[in-house]
């Protein structure tokens, strides 16, 4: 039994924290809300220097060959300071490319960071939904995946793709003859359009991706590997969210110690104290599920969908609760532009709606367990 960070993992996390501390990411997030996302610092050179683009690519292709849990540690650090490092898009894309051989040629520049990839999120079928689907541009109904034609071109639409604007390679899942197949398209390919969209949280670069008869490299990743990329993305956004919860709690606790009313520090009141211990409880549950997901990915792959979905579900709720507690502990000032709390709140609201949404993940947890109970 060993469910603790190794020395190398502690080092990776500390190094990430140090590297990110050189940038004023939270201030930039606020400025970008008033101007546009070009006000955000470009963190990709720093990520490249730290070796993050190749975290999940094996050494033979120039990567670090690390585990998903290591990548989750890095995302957690990004989440702490609302850093928009485009790993949420890049890492699942490299996982798909690395799981077959047809995408080999693309891997080396992606590992070095010379090029950047983005993953077109594709949700595998579930207990009640027999189709592969993707997020719709609007509404509750899940959308169809792009179609892959007999000539190897791809046609379709994928909404709210994290880190798509400016990506050099887009890696997704299409349907060919009724079966899922992985594909990669390069920036500038015919019929490819990436419309940059910003919703509520300036730190996220999102894109609506349209493919119209776009030539693609057809990949040989298995359906399981394609499904695994979806759960990898769930685990990564969960880790990122838990990092943001850590900051929200730290800031709120610090304020509850120093701010006095009626002659007492407000943190001495049970109403405040219990709210903050509730943040801690949800944070601790989220952390434990990150370990579950990190372990299951290699230790028990059959459980990875359940583990990653549970992590996503708990971390989504935790971040919403923590961001609201952060605001309410600060009182009115916590809801103003002056304060960082609204930036974490914005992060919480958007994050919970991306990649199938955290309530989609909650439903997936139920589906996995109900399916398991029926057999």
């Amino acid at each position: 039994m060993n469910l603790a960070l190794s020395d190398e993992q502690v080092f990776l996390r500390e190094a990430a924290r140090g590297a990110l501390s050189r940038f004023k990411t939270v201030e930039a997030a606020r400025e970008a809300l008033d101007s546009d996302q070009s006000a955000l610092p470009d963190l990709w050179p720093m990520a490249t220097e730290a070796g993050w683009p190749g975290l999940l690519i094996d050494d033979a292709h120039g990567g670090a060959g690390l585990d998903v849990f290591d990548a989750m540690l890095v995302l957690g650090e990004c989440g702490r300071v609302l850093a928009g490092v485009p790993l949420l898009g890049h890492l699942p894309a490299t996982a798909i490319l690395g799981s077959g051989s047809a995408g080999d040629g693309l891997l080396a520049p992606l590992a070095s960071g010379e090029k950047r990839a983005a993953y077109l999120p594709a949700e595998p079928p579930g207990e009640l939904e027999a189709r592969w689907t993707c997020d719709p541009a609007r509404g509750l109904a899940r959308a169809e995946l792009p179609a892959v034609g007999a000539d190897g071109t791809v046609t379709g639409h994928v909404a709210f793709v994290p880190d798509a604007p400016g990506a050099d390679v887009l890696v997704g899942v299409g349907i060919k003859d009724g079966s899922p197949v992985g594909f990669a398209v390069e920036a500038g390919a015919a019929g490819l359009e990436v419309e940059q969209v910003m919703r509520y949280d300036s730190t996220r670069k999102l894109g609506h991706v349209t493919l119209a008869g776009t030539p693609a490299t057809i990949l040989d990743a298995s359906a399981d590997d394609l499904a695994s990329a979806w759960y990898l993305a769930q685990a990564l956004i969960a880790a990122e969210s838990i990092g943001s919860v850590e900051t929200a709690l730290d800031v709120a606790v610090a304020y509850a110690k120093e701010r006095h009313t009626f002659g007492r520090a407000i943190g001495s009141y049970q109403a405040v104290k219990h709210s903050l211990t509730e943040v801690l409880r949800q944070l601790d549950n989220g952390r434990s599920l990150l370990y579950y997901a990190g372990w299951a990915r290699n230790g028990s792959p059959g459980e990875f969908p359940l583990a990653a979905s549970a992590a996503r579900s708990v971390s989504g709720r935790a971040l919403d609760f923590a961001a609201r507690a952060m605001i309410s502990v600060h009182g009115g000032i916590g809801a103003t532009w002056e304060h960082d709390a609204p930036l974490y709140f914005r992060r919480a609201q958007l994050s919970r709606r991306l990649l199938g949404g955290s309530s989609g993940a909650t439903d997936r947890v139920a589906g996995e367990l109900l399916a398991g109970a029926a057999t």
Partner: protein
Amino acid sequence: MDLDDTPDQGAYRAQVRAWLDQNKHSAPVLQGEGALTDEDEIVAARRAWQGKLAEAGLAGVTWPKEFGGQSLGPIEQVICNQEIARAKVPGILDAIGVGMLGPTIIAHGTDEQKTRYLGPMLHGDEVWCQLFSEPAAGSDLAAVQTRARQQDDGSWRLTGQKVWTTNAQFASYGLLLARTDSDVPKHKGMTMFIVPMDAEGVTVRGLRQISGEAEFNEVFFDDVALEEGAVVGGVGNGWGTALTTLMYERVTIGLGGEGMGYNSTRFAAAIAGDEAARRDPEVRHQLGEIASELLAVRFTGYRTLTALQKGQIPGPEAGLAKVTIVNGAIRAGDLIADVLGPDALDEDSDWAYMISFLPGLKSAGGTEEILRNTIGERVLGLPPEPRLDKGIPFSELRSKEGAAA
């Protein structure tokens, strides 16, 4: 990162499993076909089974060898618990004695006490109970009013009442926290005693709960005589001694994990049979939320084990897992009753007992509110509630409370 046994742990597991395979036929049957129903017979059979487990080294695994234990670590205790659960046989009857009270005596008792009491406790010959909580001293345990007065010959006289006492109806001894000096602040004037439960003046009365069953007792002490040698850990040191017991309580809970059967797989199975329920978005959402939190607790348990393996003792944050388990199980019981309807509340259903048991469990081992206070102060470092009892002699405190009422 792994959940695997080391080679040593694997060898230990194999050894435990082999013994259980050979001996499980002689374990008492408590559920299903041929189950014992008579309370006295159950207790007798479970005591005998505890004796067998102890002789085989499967009870008191972490106790020092000189007191009949194995001098092994908490991880071996967990392996033992896991294998006992896997073999579907009962564990030891006196988990409170062996898990919490014995270790307290080992830490604070006299040589005479260790020699006299530990062996029979470990083997189930003498069952123990924990006499700490009182009607007006639960979360605020240091408010105990049960009074022990020392006599001229050094012996003691004990008067008062305890409550929530598991196993008192068949216990031979109890470890009791009493007030011995009311003229000092409340944490200072207490002493721990060993009390023979068959002494004159001890009355045990079952306390029925929502389910109708009496799992706990009230225990009354009416001028009970105790020998001078009944003191554990020194006169006036009762609070420090009690903290040792409470620390072992946290360890025991940490090692127990999902032992109460409140787990996501079991709850999902209760719903999976209902076709309408498994397609209902609200049912699925509730189940998903509950299950995610209970899965988290399983891995919090593994994290705790990792820490224990490294020699770290769980802190008050371990209480958060209890909050999650209890509230998760309450929600699950509610959801299952929504799905199954009134049949879920039938006395014979799998769920009626759980639904009845949980409201009380919410306060067991400290109310949720006091746990959140403790965690807020000790883990998050938040300032404490202002206290009106600091530094005030217990007797004055009592008269203040009287004046306020």
